């Protein structure tokens, strides 16, 4: 190889420019090897230049290569026939490879003759003293790419005998490069500690890297996409000065989940169709709520009204409020937090947020699970109104990269006014609902003991929906639960919601 490379360089030095086929003939090696040597010289830098030219040409088939190496079938057969006495046909047919073709060709060339009446069966004799193996010669020329010396008939014959076929070959036109040299230094693949220690790296040449190849995957763990999005939302709330609520409480009383929110006891959401009730523990005690009269105030506002409201006019039952459920929204925790806020001697304006699991006993499909994550934000301060609610929602969604918003009047049992939040979806070309919001009703806040001029504005959305849109997931079971494909988890990009 090294000899071949220096031979090539010497040849180029002499001739300035040449083709790879020329080198082939000159060095008497196969074209493939010349190309290999050229590539290895090219890897050293701009020592030479090589322009590829694609041409079509004849190339040897496997059989053709065998003939080029060992002689044509007829020549082989001729050689197997002893001069003079000849040999029995049956023996030749057995011992000589490709004897059948060789026999008929040799017979046609009148190199041999067949005596059918010889004793012991048909016998073959030489008819000429010696033969010139033209076929083999032609094939050797094909291998050396000197096609010019072949006649059209010869080409046709070789093709017909399936000894050659049309192929495409890339021939290189080679010339001296700007850094032409006759001596090639050995290339190093890796920079080693030893090279650094000895300082030898300064004199070595290094093999070029193949930057098109893929790197080796690092062996690492991955975070779940939904929780990456959760982290991003938490970050946004923290940037906006919100304080996180303690939502680690899946089991909640109906009281805090519904009654405290002024949601009447016959409300459809309290049906077994929508809510998971429990058998163990089936009901809880509301001692603390009872102790300071809060329970009684809630009962009063439901059944008879108060605080400027006419109430729902029904028979409110404590037993219904005691029923344990899996919380249907994190607003149950918000209610607890607002109640605590009201118990402080002096009201402090507050911003709260939470992102946690909630449970709905609904029918399930590709986008609905019995459990999902609710994102919720609320602000409690004096004299907050709809304009503030819309303002803070706009700020929040801007941070998510969502700019076109509009608001639709809606109904929610515990907020009034209530608004659904719509954003314009460029992909779908229409307005889609992205969240819900409202001002908490006085019937919810005043029984807690919050000052009358304090309003609480709040909004909520699901964590799953933005995540599914972000990661292009159509079935929620591909995102949550044991059927998740971990490959999806590992290839998911980092979450930048504003991008």
């Amino acid at each position, binding site marked *: 190889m090294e000899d071949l490379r220096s031979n090539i360089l010497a040849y180029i030095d002499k001739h300035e420019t040449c083709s790879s086929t020329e080198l082939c003939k000159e060095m008497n090696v196969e074209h493939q090897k010349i190309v290999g040597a050229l590539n290895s010289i090219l890897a050293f830098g701009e020592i030479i230049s090589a322009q590829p030219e694609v041409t079509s040409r004849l190339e040897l088939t496997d059989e053709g290569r065998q003939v080029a190496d060992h002689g044509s079938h007829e020549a082989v057969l001729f050689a197997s026939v002893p001069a003079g006495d000849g040999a029995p046909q049956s023996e030749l047919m057995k011992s000589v490879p490709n004897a059948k073709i060789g026999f008929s060709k040799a017979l046609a060339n009148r190199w041999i003759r067949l005596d059918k009446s010889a004793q012991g069966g048909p016998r073959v004799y030489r008819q000429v003293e010696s033969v010139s193996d033209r076929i083999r010669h032609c094939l050797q020329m094909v291998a050396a790419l000197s096609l010019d010396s072949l006649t059209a008939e010869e080409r046709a014959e070789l093709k017909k005998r399936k000894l050659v076929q049309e192929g495409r070959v890339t021939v290189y036109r080679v010339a001296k490069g700007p850094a032409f040299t006759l001596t090639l230094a050995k290339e190093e693949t890796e920079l080693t500690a030893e090279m650094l220690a000895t300082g030898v790296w300064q004199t070595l040449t290094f093999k070029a890297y193949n930057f098109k190849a893929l790197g080796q995957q690092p062996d690492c*763990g991955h975070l779940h996409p939904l929780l990456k999005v959760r982290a991003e939302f938490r970050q946004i709330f923290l940037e906006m000065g919100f304080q996180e609520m303690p939502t680690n409480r899946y089991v909640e009383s109906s009281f805090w989940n519904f009654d405290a929110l002024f949601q009447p006891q016959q409300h459809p959401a309290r049906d077994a169709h929508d809510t998971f009730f429990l058998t163990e523990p089936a009901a809880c005690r509301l001692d603390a709520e009872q102790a300071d009269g809060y329970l009684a105030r809630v009962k009063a506002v439901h059944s008879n009204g108060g605080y400027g409201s006419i109430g729902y006019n029904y028979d409110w039952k404590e037993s219904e409020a005691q029923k344990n459920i899996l919380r249907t929204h994190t607003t149950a925790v918000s209610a607890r937090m607002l109640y605590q806020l009201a118990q402080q001697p002096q009201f402090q304006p507050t911003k709260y947020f939470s992102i946690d699991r909630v449970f709905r006993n609904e029918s399930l499909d590709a986008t609905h699970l019995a459990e999902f994550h609710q994102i919720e934000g609320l602000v409690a301060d004096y004299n907050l109104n709809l304009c503030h609610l819309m303002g803070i929602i706009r700020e929040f969604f801007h941070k998510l990269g969502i700019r076109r918003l509009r608001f639709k009047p809606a109904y929610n049992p515990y907020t009034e006014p209530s608004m659904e939040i719509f954003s314009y979806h460029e992909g779908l070309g229409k307005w889609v609902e992205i969240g819900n919001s409202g001002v908490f009703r006085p019937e919810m806040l005043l029984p807690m003991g919050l000052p009358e001029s304090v309003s609480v504005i709040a909004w909520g959305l699901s964590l799953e929906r933005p995540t599914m849109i972000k990661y292009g997931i159509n079935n929620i079971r591909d995102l949550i*639960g044991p059927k998740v494909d971990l490959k999806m988890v590992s290839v998911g990009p980092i979450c930048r919601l504003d991008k």
Partner: protein
Amino acid sequence: VGRSIIEIILLGSRVVGRAFAAALREEYAASQQAAKNRQQSSSSSGGDSDQSGTASAISGLSLKEAMQILHVENLEDKSRIQHQYDHLFGVNDRKKGGSFYLQAKVFRAKERIDQEIGQQTVDPTYSQRMPVVQIEKAALCQCLNRKDFTDEEVDELCFEFGLELDEVTSEREMLAKEQGDAKAAQMGDQLSDAVIYKIEVPANRYDLLCVEGLSRALMVFQSLAQPPLYKAVQPAAGMQQMRVAPSTAQIRPYVVCAMLRNLSFTPASYKSFIDLQDKLHQTICRQRSLVAIGTHDFDTLTGPFLYEALPPSDIVFKPLNQTKEFSAVELMQLYSGESHLKAYLPIIRDSPVYPVIKDANGVVLSMPPIINGDHSKITLNTKNVFIEATATDAHKASVVLDTLVCAFSQYCSEQFTVEAVQVNYPDGRASIYPSLAYRQVDIQVDYLRKGVGRSDSQLTIDEICNRLTRMCLVAKATSDATVSVTVPPTRHDVLHPCDVLEDLAIAIGYNNLEMSLPPTLCTGKQQPLNSLTDKLRLEVAFAGFTECLTFALCSEKDISERLRLPLDSLPAVRIANPKTLEFQVARTSLLPGILKTVHSNRSLPLPLKLFEIQDVVYKSTDSSGSAVNSRQLAAVYYGKSSGFELIHGLMDRIMQVLGVPVDQYKLSATEVATYFTGRCANVLYKGSPVGTIGVLHPETLAQFDLTLPASAFVFDVE
């Protein structure tokens, strides 16, 4: 109507039959397959090659099977799929004597089909069921005096008013969607191509539940009409009387009544009248449990009326659309097979007495809340409609009655006028219905202005009054500082001045309000536990483990049998009304979820290193009757060898990043059935156990169909 109901019932039972048979076949095939798998895995060395085969066998249903179970042929026909699912899920409910197993199959089949058709994303957060009203485009255009209304403009108007234009369709399209194009084509000219809008209305606006109410509200909103003034009048000849017998107190103590005189129905308004009753029954009446409405042709009856409760065998009458008389006992039997009535039977079934309303001649008007009598049924030609509504909640009954008469009194010869009926209670109390009460609410103007963020000059009192009137809330300035708002009997949703404020904001237009940021200054703060959790998640992921996210609800088997633990020993929270087996309990351990995740990812290159940090739930040990969440960290290593040293190393690493000194943390050998004998330890922190670690027991692995060894730990973060 009668024939189509019968058709539905026949179709229904056939569908159940097929689904049942198919599910049984499927169960048989599944058990065969499972047996085959067990054989295979025991005879092979348990390498990777045979795992994918096992996976497909265990992952459950093929699409074809799923379609057979739900008996659907066309995946495009989503409404049929949903309908079949709802139906089959309902009939297999355990409470109705169905089988949990079959229900689970139905669920799985739906899941499989959903997976195939990859439904569009819908926000699951606040998916409240909103009632839908259908209104013909032509009718809407006519009342809004706009011939050239485009669908976009209607959509826009609905949006501003707080309605949602759900669908633009026609009679033909709706039938084609439900029963296929062929059927729709077959019906030919019997179906109309007139454009119909399906409009969702807010759940508390019962006055918008019919075309009459909806179009009137929009007309007033567009200043095309004044809010009507509804009146209840007492006829000179004396009111009709309804006497309430003491026996009703046992079952359904209240009744309210009204009379619509000289009414003329058109086919459209007649249908709307029936529809509104149905919608009220489904919403505020809570499936007739709170209130049940009966409407009668008064000219077939003679007052006074009697509302009483009798033993079922004493009630005999010819019910609506039947040809002979039945006793109440027979009726309960008859209707137990009728899909649209059987849901109401439990409301009275077990009571010793059933409610019944009769006229002076003993003619049965109705047996609420089940069925009316045939004798007094209303027709297109009925002129005088007697309405009764029986209830367990007097207030709601009055609201329902008001809603019904307000919407339909416009068809009376004397518009918006209703004839009152007197109800006499056993205690001597007499009430006159409908109440049609107008309520005055005085509201501070300042409150309204602040609520929408506008100053005196930006929002004058006159403008406030005008805008409120457009919402059917007639308002008058009573001083510079107050307005008096009259809440009409159609607006029972108005409870508090904040409801008036919302209507003002709607009338101004939410999107015309000027946004501003709240002035509230606070500092951000995280929950320490969540902050720690997020940091731990990062550390564990840095250590090469991948995070799972699994369900907080699972089956009893998942946390007990499959972990080789007795169920009684677990402080599990149990769910009373799970729709499928997967929601029986709240998880007490993260392990089952992670092992299931391992199972469905067995084809990935080994080893699998998974973790999860989430809450598990324990029943409280005290008498508070509550439950607590506990933050747990669990990790699993699954590979050719148990990899215990790696799991142990991760545990060490976690203790290291938590800053636990080496001498405060150690492992001490123990036996937990989940883990392999002699390969399990308690994690002790300052001498008390905070978790368990070990090589999983081969039978635990088998429970999750895992064929390679695994190690795990669970650890209490708190």
